[in-house]
């Protein structure tokens, strides 16, 4: 019971931090929100007996990626006052229906009360993650090399300076 309450509390916090990271207009706060989300997820992973996944989540997602984000954000310039206000207004308009939809869907699900057995079967025999990685899923390591290469080309192609970006062409959108 205590565990259930702890899980529910952590999941609620995770959701709130995630929503804050997406909704906040300040990039720095958004990056911090993401780091908090990762930190809460780390706690959940530890509680669910996945310490190695927790360590990766904490060191890579909450640590390294946040540092990279904050470094990049420190190189940007914030919007001027009037421009920022106009953006805030359009953003509020865009998301105003989101909480209403969530409430309606929640109420509908509560009213319908679907009888679904979603209890999960127990996980199979656990294997050491190193063994899985090196002795079972070697093809996926090749895949990982390919993803890293794609990321490297992406950084080079998108972040290198190009003097004249092409003007958009084409007809009207619909």
């Amino acid at each position: 019971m205590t565990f259930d309450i702890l899980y529910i509390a952590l999941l609620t916090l995770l959701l709130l931090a995630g929503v804050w990271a997406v909704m906040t207009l300040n990039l720095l706060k958004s990056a911090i929100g993401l780091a908090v989300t990762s930190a809460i997820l780390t706690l959940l992973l530890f509680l669910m007996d996945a310490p190695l996944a927790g360590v990766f989540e904490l060191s890579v997602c909450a640590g390294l990626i946040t540092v990279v984000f904050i470094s990049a954000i420190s190189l940007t310039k914030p919007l001027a006052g009037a421009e920022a206000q106009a953006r805030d207004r359009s953003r509020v308009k865009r998301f105003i229906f989101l909480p209403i939809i969530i409430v309606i869907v929640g109420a509908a699900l509560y009213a319908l009360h679907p009888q679904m057995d979603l209890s999960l079967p127990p996980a199979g025999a656990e294997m050491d993650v190193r063994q899985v990685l090196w002795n079972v899923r070697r093809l996926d390591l090749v895949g990982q090399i390919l993803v890293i290469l794609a990321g490297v080309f992406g950084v080079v192609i998108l972040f290198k300076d190009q003097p004249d970006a092409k003007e958009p062409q084409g007809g009207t959108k619909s």
Partner: protein
Amino acid sequence: MPALLIIVPLLAILALNLPWMRLMNRLALWVGLILCLIQAFLVILHPDFFWQAPSLWLGHLLLFAPTVDYLSLVMFLAIAIVGAVALMVCRYSVPSITDPAETRTCANNRFLVINLVILALTGMNGVVLANDLFSLYVFLEITAVASYILIAVEKGADAFEGAFKYLILSAVATALILAAIALLMLTAGSLSFTHVRLAMSASPHSHVVLAAVAMLVVGLFIKGGLIPFHGWLPDAYSAAPAAVSVLLAGIVTKTTGVYTLFRIVISIIGFNASLQTLLLFIGAASMLIGALAALGQSDFKRMLAYSSISQVGYMILGLGTGTILGIAGSIFHLFNHAIFKSLLFVNAAAVEQQAGTRNMDRLGGLAEKMPVTGSTSAIGFLSTAGIPPLAGFWSKLIIIVALWQAGHIVYAVLAILASLLTLAYFLSMQRRVFFGKLAAGFESLKEANAWILIPACVLALITIGLGVGIPWLFETFLLPIRSLL
């Protein structure tokens, strides 16, 4: 040995990025083309030593023994052809550091784009070879990551918008697919297609399995750009550079969305009434809404993008019949679509590059100045609309006959109506772009160069050849599909 289709391109990319940059710059395109041609010849000549003989050292190194069936071979051929065409269009439309006029462009786009195209092709080969759900997911992601970057490569506002929409919706699809994989792993204890299929047939009414299947199918609908998850597709196709549009429309969404759905339905889930109803409904909606939306477009590439949604609808409709004939028609249409949609995007690239616009309202009479582009475009659109004796006619006919035989008469009638709509919007496109009086300002327009005319002519010849050679194809292409079920 088929695992070499992943390893050799990976080694090629590593070799291309060795220090001799000037030399590698010149070689990159040829390396990509040779890889694609070898892949195409391996499928056409089908040497047993490559496809059937197990490679002990490679199997030991990767712990991977792929099994290649008929559907995989069709996909490998389509990937090779569209990949080669995309690389040639890349040579035509993407600037290189070796061009004197572009020496200021320090990013040397062409070389990097070629590398990313080879990466995307490798990812797609991996998707086709995978016989395990997690490996399938890994290779889907490789293809997707390379595609996001390729769409944004021109760095304009439209390019970033297209790439961002694809990234966000693809991330949603990824989350759904990954969650489904986790549930299936818990249920089956393994992720190989065979184990998951056995576990699913052992507990067909488990709510966990049903939830996993629902998430998997919806995730793949998003990847395939089907209605109502198509929001990213027109922006991504139209904002991407010409070569990338060819690759995306010709093969990427077909492999990551449609092929993967086919593979999962055929090899894992199997057919049941609920799934077939869902596939038929989504297929029909995509077919009709895509065609209606294409009618209202004035941007050449956006119109082709909506047309792609409509044609993918046909494929899903054929799959939804659950019969051998329907699946055969769908796979044939998938291959045909890869060819004729690539052809139409190649033509759009030629028009955009030569005329400087894709806005069909500002174009007109271009066939006078660009006769090869105009003629091949006519072949492409007639095949898409299902006009005999071109390839598209036969694949659509087989799908419609399969629908009729399976008792889905309403869907068969809708498929015929959508074909008429396809003819309407393509006739409108051909009239506005290529026929009639030459539009003002295009008096000095010239035909595109060989880098775009050669792929256009080859694709047009394949479209005609597949249509005229249907008696031969029936034996070699359609009947072997029985082995899949």
